[in-house]
């Protein structure tokens, strides 16, 4: 069997795209000091909202726009709970995932069995949204490391008390970060429904949101690291599909565990490095997962 390295690479990049979007969004959220475990719920919301809009309008790009809006809209539920009602972030994120999965399953029924409108190929025959994902990597890097707003966002994430004392609005910064994370997760979910599977099925994100969360840890909270993690994941997925297609004598169900097992292994390796390495750095943002309540 001839394997063309370029075409395998392109498959890998496409397979990595949903995770790339979601993980880049979550990266910004976590750099602002917020742990949103609702990525899976926001992705599935985007997958359905985007698919429905693309199907109804016949325009896949409109679908992606609606997916981003849908993901951002549902993320505001999490933002309200954690930023206004000061609820526990782990529990609120879980609630968002459970609610999003239910909501999408409920409203998705009429869209089962219909096909997504075809997407025009982008430059070099590569999907426009894949390009968008790749462009987002340097943009997010630039925003976090070179822009003033990014500096404030990181300050809020590292030490919210200090940022507040300097006069920055902690809640508003975090609200904006959460909405951005929601929009990115929505785009990632819509890539699965509109550009990969081409139809809507219940629970179709199949843990991609959770894998994205793991990739943010793997990335050591950097945009380049997110790209590396997403591509690693894409590689495992493509390899697994190739092995299935080649008829390897391993049951399909065991092969399809590969992405999840790979995620665990990667998570363990990177956590071990952070735990045992002498050099500091690559650590989580200082205020990650803690709520801010201004007493003054």
């Amino acid at each position, binding site marked *: 069997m001839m394997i063309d390295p370029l075409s395998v690479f392109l498959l890998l990049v496409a397979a990595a795209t949903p995770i790339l979007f979601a993980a880049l969004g979550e990266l910004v959220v976590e750099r602002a000091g917020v742990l949103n475990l609702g990525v899976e719920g926001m992705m599935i919301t985007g997958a359905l909202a985007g698919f429905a809009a693309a199907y109804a309008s016949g325009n896949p790009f409109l679908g992606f726009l609606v997916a981003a809006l849908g993901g951002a809209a549902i993320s505001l539920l999490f933002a309200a709970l954690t930023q206004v009602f000061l*609820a526990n972030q782990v529990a609120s994120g*879980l609630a968002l995932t459970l609610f999003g999965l239910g909501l999408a399953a*409920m409203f998705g029924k009429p869209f089962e069995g219909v096909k997504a409108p075809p997407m025009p190929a982008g430059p070099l025959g590569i999907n426009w949204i894949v390009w968008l994902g790749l462009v987002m990597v340097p943009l997010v890097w630039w925003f976090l490391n070179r822009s003033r707003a990014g500096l404030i966002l990181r300050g809020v994430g590292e030490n919210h008390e200090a940022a507040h004392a300097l006069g920055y609005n902690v809640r508003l910064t975090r609200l904006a970060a959460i909405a951005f994370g929601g929009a990115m997760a929505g785009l990632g979910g819509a890539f699965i429904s509109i550009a990969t599977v081409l139809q809507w099925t219940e629970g179709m994100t199949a843990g991609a949101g959770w894998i994205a969360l793991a990739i943010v840890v793997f990335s050591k909270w950097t945009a380049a690291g997110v790209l590396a993690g997403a591509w690693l994941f894409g590689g495992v997925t493509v390899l697994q599909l190739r092995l299935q297609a080649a008829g390897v004598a391993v049951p399909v169900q065991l092969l399809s565990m590969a992405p999840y097992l790979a995620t665990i292994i990667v998570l363990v390796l990177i956590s071990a490095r952070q*735990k045992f390495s002498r050099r500091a750095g690559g650590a989580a943002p200082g205020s990650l997962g803690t709520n801010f309540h201004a*007493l003054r």
Partner: protein
Amino acid sequence: MIQLVPRQSASSFWQIATPLMAVLATMVAGGLLFAALGHDPLAAIRTIFWDPLFGPAASYSRPQLLVKAAPLILIASGLAIGFRAGIWNIGAEGQYIIGGITGAAVALAAYPAEGMWIFPAMVVAGAAGGWAWGMIPALLRNWFGASEILVSLMLVYVAQRVAAWMAFGPMKNPEGFGFPGSRNLQQYPAAANPELIAGTGAHWGVVAAAVAVLATWFLMSRHIRGFHIRAAGTAPRAARFAGVRPQALVAFCLGLSGALAGMAGLFEVAGPAGQITDKLGVGYGFTAIIVAFLGRLHPVGILLAGLLLALTYIGGELAQLTMQLPAASVQVFQGMLLFFLLGFDLLTRFQIRRRVTA
């Protein structure tokens, strides 16, 4: 302007009042949602919350209450202990599936032997399977610092695929005419988990859930380990000075909640479900998280919350049949419940005062 003042300790009045408010708010919001979907909201609420207990078909649906509540309460009892200590096992669904498989494995290996030992051995094997699956995130966290949240969750997807592999491969019924799925354990008396008292729905899982409620109550309020767990959750540093070993606590909490989830899986496979299929996991492990929070991580609260969420399952099925409500509306309902609970929880931790302007 209003101002939020943190309370010294959680208000006991609001601890009890907020879950009730959350249930009411969910009914109102759920009613609005159903109205938006073109259903009569009052009829929908009545179908979900009233008819399963007192409606025309209640004699059929009432026993289902215990059948559905038992796994929820059993799993949530274990999860709540970890949540108290800040140890987040959100992979109970996976531990439930693996427990069902290891428990059923004993029965399938023993088939067609008879003996009083078979069912107890299955329960032990189910608990051991769930325990082992829960120990994976525990050890990875203790040894390498890997997040138990993500590892336990990833293992749910792995467990689902193990179940599918078993149903289509090693555990497939040799007399099943090629259909996927194991032998039906309900037709194998030594391994079956039958209804103990006719018409109640009570099987051995219900007994186990009742024992779990009592045992976790004892553990948390009367045993030194329970004190350690509560201390680790509220003041980790102080807990260390009190002699709490964080690593031992992680292993204990994840192991215990895994074992309870595994038992719940076994009782389901040997009872209501009857066999290993690829659809072994039906979401009890995730709903149990809501049960634990709604029950305020307290054994008695979990008992009541488990019964209430069991009711939403049964009522949801009923509403699906009689009103053609979408099946996923139960999930939406449960998600909303958790949202409202987390929101109202503000009242237990903060006092709302009018800001005094100087």
